[in-house]
Structure formats: structure tokens, C-alpha cells
């Protein structure tokens, strides 16, 4: 008996073993695909990508993938025939927004002696997803130093299950350089996540430069821990260039102590009722709303997505109750604390209405009993019961409760021998698990990397490979749940993105052949945009 206990404890058997799968290993798993047993050998010197439309964004993506298709260099010269990947896109619109089509098909076949490679998509963003998938079809053989596409003919028909597939990051608890945020955007695009939810500010720091209130960054960790307007524009444009929406969050009314470095008068006065992290603004002061309005106005110009996250989480009612000024104001207005919160949230909604933004908040005000307007998106971090209540109220939900990357035990009651096996919990956490009615209002989810113990030094390793499971859960069919099969695809995918500079470790014993230059990109974006491109990308969204 003792012996078996020892075995279990020591060798740390990974609870899953990869299952041999034949055929292409694509992550997230496409909705439908078929494959054969042929091979198309590629000649890197004679490989072209051609598109049927003129789009700067698509052309840029094509240039990128021409490099990413062949990570190990040109390889050994071959005399394989010329191959052209033809991209056919129906719309030349470059507008990136929630619900934009990301559908695509890929066909890879030999017609006579010549390879026929084709991508068809509704939009350039669908074409970008297809390019990523195509890059995963190409295989490199280190011994012969040659590239090929095995398992042809391949036919893929793919589309996402949910339109909102995000990763939330937190630059309020730790500053993360602009270059690293672009690096993160790449990792999102590789795994077909389409939303970077940027929790910019929190109680600990306010790192975003504001045109109208330059002093606000006195609340940053330091003068070198600031995003300039140009930095933020570069991040937003970089996201757009990968089909990744950048959703800003400026958390109010709680988690806002950092605003008060520049504007000390706006905080609730409640020593002892909140820690610095969660400390709220005062709802009783017109200056507070004025400040929020100015900041949100500035930020709305930079963050051009239609959605804007205003936080709204974890309001410590006791703090408002115990501030004499707020208490008096609530009495005068005949407000309960919940009504005071309602009032505050209504003001934020008005501010965002004026900026043509749709509000996103954490589910807390809803849970507290505030009326939430139907066009709001609620991010649920509590549990499926809460998600069910939200959608039953006719409000759209994005789910995050089982996807907290910072937690030791992300899904209550689920523990594993090895920590990285928490990917299994993320994978099993279907957004519709426990949500049985009004499921169409669950529009996706986000993996959350809170920043108390994370910055660019350790970010990749804390997020990857575990978030691969979330990316697949949000993209692939609901019935794709076999963890052994997933493992067989996830480790090659983890290696695939490692080769591009994302520090994504393994999930079981194996070997990942790395390029000679991967480490150059381990904290940097693979690509950069010129100032001109950034400007053009902004103009393309108008």
C-alpha cells in the first residue's frame, strides 16, 4: 500500500497522456476539417501569398505570416514547384468590432502536379485567423531542413463559437512595458483570442497619460512607468493589425486610489473601511464625475473600440456609509447605499453614452441590486448562477469565474498534483455549464491575469500554456472536450508559439525544437508598426 502511495506522489504522473492523433494538429480545433495522406513539399524560395483585395491590414498580415510560415529559415534548397496561397476575401472593410465575421475555409490540395492552396473568408479578420491555422499545417523536418504540408488534401471550415474571446491583463498592480503588451497581443492572435481587456488602472497605480489632465500620472508607480498617448495608440493599432480588439478598463468607483495622487479631494473618506487597493471615489462630489468624464473622454479617443469597461467591482459599502459627507448626501437624496451606487453607475453610463461607448462592467452592481441597462455587457467573475441571473435579466454576459490565472485553485474543489494541470479545469469550464436558459446572451469569456504577482518578467509563463485551453473552449465546438486529444495538440501548439518568442512551457515530457532566434522575441513583439501605419489604422476605423 505504501508503495503505491509513493508512486502516486513521486513520479508526478501527468493525469493525462497525449493520445496519438493522425492528421493536422490545429489549436483551437477547427469546427470541421478533413484530411488525406498526401504531402505537399514546399520550396521557401517559391512560395507566394496573394489576395484578391487591396487592404493594408491584410497585406501586413500576409507579410507577417510569410515569415511565420518558415520559422527555421529558408531551409535546404529544393526544386519543389512554385506554390501560391490564394486568399479570397468578400469584404474589403477593415473595421474591427465585436461580432465581425472570423469565419474562413482553407483548402490544400494537389491538382495534377501543382499545389492549390486557398483561403476564403468573409472579412480580412477571418483571413488572419486562416493564416494562423495555415501556419500550423506547415511542418518542418530538422533532419532534411525542409518544409512540407502533410495530410493533404486538407479542407477546413472554421468559425468561432463565441464572438468575445479575451485575455484580461492588469497594469494597475504592475506596470508592463508597451512592447510587452504588443507581445501579449501576438500571443492572443496566435491562439485566436480576439480581445485584450486592458485593466489599465487600479488602486496601486494610474499609468495612462491623459491629454487634458497630465497630472493624473502622478499616480503611476514612477515617471518611467507610464503609457504615453502614443504608446496606447500603438497598442490599440497593433491589436487591430492582428484582429484583436483592445478594450480599456478604468476601474471606478472602487480600485481608484491612484486617481487621488493628482486629485486628493475625490476619494471617499473612510479610514479603516478599505485597503488602498479597493478604496472608492466619493459619489457625492461633482468633481469626481467631472474627473471621470475628462479621463474617459481622453481615453475614448485612443481606445476606439465601441466597448469601454468601467470596472464597478467590489464597492465597499461601509466606506461610503461611514464617510460623513457621503452619508449626508445619501440622506439628502434619500439613497440607500445601493441607490447611491445606482446613481454613480447611471452617471458613468451617461458619460459613456456621450462618447458613443457601450459600457462593460463586472457583475457586482447587478448583484448588489442596481438596475443595469440592457445594452451593458456584464463580466461575471462569481459563478454560473450569477451568469444565469444576468442573462435571465436580458443582459449579455462574458464569463471569467473559472478562468482566474492567478489563483492557486482556480476552480473550487479541483486540485491536481502538478500546478500546470489547472489547464484541465479551465478546459472543462464551459461558459454554458450551469447556464441553461437565454444562453444566446453568453457572448464569450475572458481569461484573467490579475497583476499582483505578475508583470512582464513572468507573464508568459503564468498565462501560457494554460490559456490555450480557454482559447480552445471559446473558439471550438462545445463537444470538443477530450483532454487527451487536446494534450496531443496543445504541446505542439505551445512549442509553435515558443518559437515565436512566447515563453510557453510544456504540459508533458517531450522535446520542442527551438529556432536560433526565438529568445530575441521573448519580451518583444515580433513585428512593429510604423507611425504612418498606426495613423492609417486609426483612420481605417472611422
Amino acid at each position, binding site marked *: 500500500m505504501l508503495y503505491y502511495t509513493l508512486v502516486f506522489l513521486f513520479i508526478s504522473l501527468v493525469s493525462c497522456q497525449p493520445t496519438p492523433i493522425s492528421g493536422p494538429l490545429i489549436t483551437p480545433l477547427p469546427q470541421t476539417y478533413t484530411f488525406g495522406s498526401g504531402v505537399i513539399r514546399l520550396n521557401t524560395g517559391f512560395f507566394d501569398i496573394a489576395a484578391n483585395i487591396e487592404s493594408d491590414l491584410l497585406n501586413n498580415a500576409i507579410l507577417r505570416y510569410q515569415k511565420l510560415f518558415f520559422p527555421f529559415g529558408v531551409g535546404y534548397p529544393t526544386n519543389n514547384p512554385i506554390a501560391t496561397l490564394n486568399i479570397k476575401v468578400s469584404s474589403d472593410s477593415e473595421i474591427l468590432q465585436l461580432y465581425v465575421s472570423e469565419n474562413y475555409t482553407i483548402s490544400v490540395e494537389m491538382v495534377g502536379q501543382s499545389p492549390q492552396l486557398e483561403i476564403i473568408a468573409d472579412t480580412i479578420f477571418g483571413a488572419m485567423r486562416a493564416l494562423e491555422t495555415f501556419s500550423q499545417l506547415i511542418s518542418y523536418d530538422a533532419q532534411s531542413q525542409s518544409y512540407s504540408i502533410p495530410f493533404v488534401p486538407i479542407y477546413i471550415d472554421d468559425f468561432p463559437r463565441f464572438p468575445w474571446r479575451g485575455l484580461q491583463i492588469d497594469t494597475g498592480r504592475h506596470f508592463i512595458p508597451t512592447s510587452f503588451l504588443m507581445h501579449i497581443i501576438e500571443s492572443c492572435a496566435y491562439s485566436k483570442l480576439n480581445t485584450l481587456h486592458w485593466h489599465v488602472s487600479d488602486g496601486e497605480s494610474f499609468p495612462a497619460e491623459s491629454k487634458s489632465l497630465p497630472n493624473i500620472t502622478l499616480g503611476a508607480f514612477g515617471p518611467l512607468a507610464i503609457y504615453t498617448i502614443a504608446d496606447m495608440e500603438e497598442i490599440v493599432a497593433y491589436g487591430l493589425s492582428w484582429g484583436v480588439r483592445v478594450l480599456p478598463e478604468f476601474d471606478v468607483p472602487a480600485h481608484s486610489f491612484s486617481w487621488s495622487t493628482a486629485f486628493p479631494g475625490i476619494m471617499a473618506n473612510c479610514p479603516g473601511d478599505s485597503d488602498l487597493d479597493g478604496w472608492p471615489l466619493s459619489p457625492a462630489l461633482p468633481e469626481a464625475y467631472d474627473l471621470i468624464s475628462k479621463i474617459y473622454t481622453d481615453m475614448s479617443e485612443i481606445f476606439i473600440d465601441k466597448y469601454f469597461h468601467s470596472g464597478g467591482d467590489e464597492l465597499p459599502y461601509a466606506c461610503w456609509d461611514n464617510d460623513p459627507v457621503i452619508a449626508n448626501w445619501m440622506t439628502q437624496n434619500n439613497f440607500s447605499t445601493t441607490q447611491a451606487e445606482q446613481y454613480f453607475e447611471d452617471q458613468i453610463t451617461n458619460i459613456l453614452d456621450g462618447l458613443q461607448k457601450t459600457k462593460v462592467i463586472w457583475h457586482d452592481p447587478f448583484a448588489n441590486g442596481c438596475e443595469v441597462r440592457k445594452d451593458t455587457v456584464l463580466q461575471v467573475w462569481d459563478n454560473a448562477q450569477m451568469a444565469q441571473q444576468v442573462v435571465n435579466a436580458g443582459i449579455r454576459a462574458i464569463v471569467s469565474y473559472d478562468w482566474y490565472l492567478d489563483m492557486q485553485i482556480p476552480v473550487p474543489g479541483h486540485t491536481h498534483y502538478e500546478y500546470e494541470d489547472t489547464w484541465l479545469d479551465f478546459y472543462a469550464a464551459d461558459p454554458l455549464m450551469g447556464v441553461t436558459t437565454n444562453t444566446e446572451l453568453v457572448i464569450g469569456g475572458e481569461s484573467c491575469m490579475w497583476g499582483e504577482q505578475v508583470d512582464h518578467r513572468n507573464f508568459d509563463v503564468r498565462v501560457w500554456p494554460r490559456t490555450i485551453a480557454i482559447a480552445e473552449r471559446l473558439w471550438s465546438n462545445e463537444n470538443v472536450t477530450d483532454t487527451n486529444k487536446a494534450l496531443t495538440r496543445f504541446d505542439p501548439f505551445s512549442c509553435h508559439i515558443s518559437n515565436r518568442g512566447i515563453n510557453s512551457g*510544456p504540459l508533458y515530457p517531450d522535446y520542442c525544437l527551438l529556432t536560433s532566434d526565438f529568445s530575441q522575441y521573448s519580451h518583444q513583439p515580433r513585428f512593429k508598426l510604423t507611425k504612418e501605419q498606426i495613423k492609417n489604422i486609426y483612420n481605417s476605423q472611422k
Partner: protein
Amino acid sequence: MAVLVGGQSPVSGPLIVPQPQQMTFGTQTLQLNPLKFQIYCPSKSPVLASAIKRYSDLFFLYGNGAPSTAPAAILNIKVISNSDSLYLGVSENHTISLVAAYSLLITADTVYGAIRALETVSQIIQYDFVTQRYTIPNTPISITDYPRFPWRGIMIDTARHFVPASYLMHTIDALAANKMNTLHWHITDGQSFPASSVTYPNLTMGAWAPEAVFSVDDIKEVVAYGKSLGVRVVPEFDIPSHTYSWAAAFPTIMANCPDYTYSYGQLPMSIANYLTYEVITNLFTEMSGYFLDTYFHTGGDEVPYGCWKEDPQVAEWMNLNGYTPTLAEQFFEDQVTSILAKVNRTKIVWNDPFVDGVKLDPSTLIQVWDSSFQDIVNAGFEVIVSFDYYLDEQVPTGNLHWMFEDTWSDFYAADPYNGITSNTNKILGGEACMWSEQVNHLSMDVRVWPRAIGVAERLWSAQTQTDVNNALTRIGPQTCRMSQRGIASGPLFPDFCMLPDDFESYLQQPRMRLSKEQINTFLNNN
């Protein structure tokens, strides 16, 4: 959605990790000018010379800074012994006295004590990003320091995933930054055999790939690099189980037990085959030429007795000799002890043979990873502890936290004496274990650090040093400092760590390579 890590209590004075045994400090600040800073050391030790060169760089990570009018300063290093010999128990004691520019002094019994002192000084020197100046605050500083345990290590597993030799040297840098002195290198396992052997070149057929191997030169460089920082490199070639990778070259030395192949990573050798012992003898003899340390780890864990019983040849052999599986294991362990004795090596094994009832040679050092601890020391064996220091586990000691990184505090609380009531003098120290089923060099820094800092301090500092908030206050700057040097060690609470422009060039890389000549010198003067 966010639970704040327990508040950090402000600690005044120098923030040093691990906390020194004794320290006093004042309120003066000494300005330093990197251009007028010298380290003076009459010792002729090549190891110390190399360390001085390294720390001259690490003292001033941000270059020369703004022009300074600070006076010239000299750090004097006085070492009693000139010997470069590195071995378990070598003195790491030192004193540091930082009074004024003309009065900066390190004294130590050995070069390795001086190297620990240099690390401490590097943690005392501060750089101000605004004024771009270096200072030594809190002078006069007086430190008397020495380790609580002589064996303070990290175990790395290069079999479940290959990591390059350069990354092992990078890890040695990280160990030295935390005054850890042992790299336990679990080289082989069932999944791969990455160590090149001149005697048996075919063994690396069991590697993951032709390029996923350590050449003999790689191994020597890692050992020499360890020595340059006072880090002993102890090899582990795990036998008789966890050896399936040996079978690529020597298929017949494996036990034949089809019922057990589902867990090929753990399959054992045949103990009834003469070739098994011949291969082990020749390989261990060769490897003892590269690994200078007198300790040699032979694993010994997790022998599946059922496999030996299932193999007809092994079963017959046991029958002929009247051996139970335990006696067979005993026979095997005795052979390994003799093989190592011939090359003057002391055997280390995991606690499994002891737990199985094998009578181990009294000289054996036992690494404890389960609860058999008290029995082992009572039986008179020396031990190193690892049971509460498993870095791969989700719940390393049974304690639950909101945030995963807070498991550092479990490691910190896990004193080697916990639960031990007698024979504590048998505890030589401990090791944090990074089993690598789910780790490679891309992720290892982050999986190991900053959490293993909790282990490093537990093994160096006084037993009474247990205040988590006090530790956090010091670990904050320490993890930042490690990052500044290129070790990807994240934070434990909200703060800001300014990184130099060049930190990325040292990610996964050693900070300072040794020359071929240095490697030869270091390997030959032990």
C-alpha cells in the same frame, strides 16, 4: 477580484536575502563612484578572481551613472585560506564591514565565504534612477554571517525536458544570488538520456533529439561554472528505475515486464543481468571524472517490485539466490555503493530503499521526499529534506492560498526541523525540487523563482527568522534584483521593478561565461 497579498511591513536598514545571521547598521549614506571603485584582494585564487570580476559588474548594473564627486573607494577582501577546493561543508562564513569609502572590508575563511559576502554587498549597493547615482545607505554596516545548513540546493530534471547547458549555468547564477550552494542535476530518467559518454557514445540514442544532449565539454563547463560561484554540481543518474532511456543503447539491461510498460518512465533495469552492472560501473566511473563533488546521486526511487517478479529471468535469479524483492533491491544498492566507493564517491539515494527495508550502507546520504524522515535520522543516516519543497505541485504542503505564488510562504514555513524531535544534527540541509514534466528552460525561471527564495532563506538564515511580512519586504527587492540580472523572477506584491536595457540579453543565459582556461583551472585545482 483581487486579494491583496499580506501587507509588507517596512523594514529599516539593508534589505538582504537571505537575512544575515547578525547585522548592525547606521544612518549614514556613502556615495559611490563606479569609476573610482576598486576591489583589492591579495588572494591568488583564480575562483575568487573570477567572482570579483563578476561582482564588479553586478555592483553597478546600470553603468557608470551620472558624474559623481564621490571619493575613491576600496573594498578589501581578506581570505584566510587560498584553497579553491569546493566540498560539502566548506566554510562560507564571512564578515562585512562598510564604514566609509576608505574602510570597506570583507573577511572570510575561504574564497567561498568571500563570494557569499560579495553577493551581500551587491544587495546593499543601491542605484537611484532619478539621480543616477550609486550609494551604500545605512552605514556603518557590520555583518557576521554564516549558513544554518551546509547543503542548500535546487534539483533540476533535464530528462523530462531537455534544457541547454547555458540554462543550467543561468540557474547557477540564480542559486548564488540566493546563497544556495548545490545544483542537484537529475540528468537522466525514463524519458531521455541526454548525457554524452565517451565509454558508451550510444547512450545518447536515448536523448530526445541529436541536439538535445550535453557534451562532455558541456558537463565540465557546468561543473566549473558552479565552482566559480561556490555551487557544487551533484549529478543524479537514477537507477534501477526511471531508466528506460538507457534501453535505446542497451535494450537487454531492462527488466522485461509488459504489465508495467504503461508507465515506461519508471521501468526498472534487470538486476539479474551482468551487463547492467558493467554499464553502470563504467558510466559512473567516467562521470566521476567530470563531476568533481564527492557525492553522487543514484536515485533508487520507485522500484516497481512487480516488474522484477514478472520478468522470468529476474524472478528465477531471485529464486536461486533466495531473494525477496527487498533483498534483491538490497543486493543492487550494495553493488552501486561498491561501484561508487571505488571512485571515492559517497552515494545519495532517495528515501525509497530505506522505506522498502533495504539496509543501506551507513555512509549513504538520504534525500527525503516523504514522511519517513524521523525514522531515517533515528537510524543514523544523514539526510537532506525535500518533502515540502516540490516546486511542481499545485498544493505543495497542503496549505491553500488565493494566489498561486503565495505558496512561497509554505516553503518558507517548512523548517527542516518541523516534526523532528531527535537527531536533528543529521539534517545537512535541503533541496527545492523542480521536476520537469511540465517545465523547460522557457518556463523554469518563473516556476522556480521567486518561490524558491523562501527555501533559500529557510536553509541559510536563523531558525527564528520566520516573519512572512518581514521576508516579503526583502524578497521584493531581491526578486527585482534577480530580474535585473536576467533571471525571470516575478513579483509577490504590487510594486515597480525598473529593469536595465540589457536584462533581456541574459534571459536563459549565464551572466558571465568562463574561458576554456578557467574551466580547466577550476576543474584541476579541486
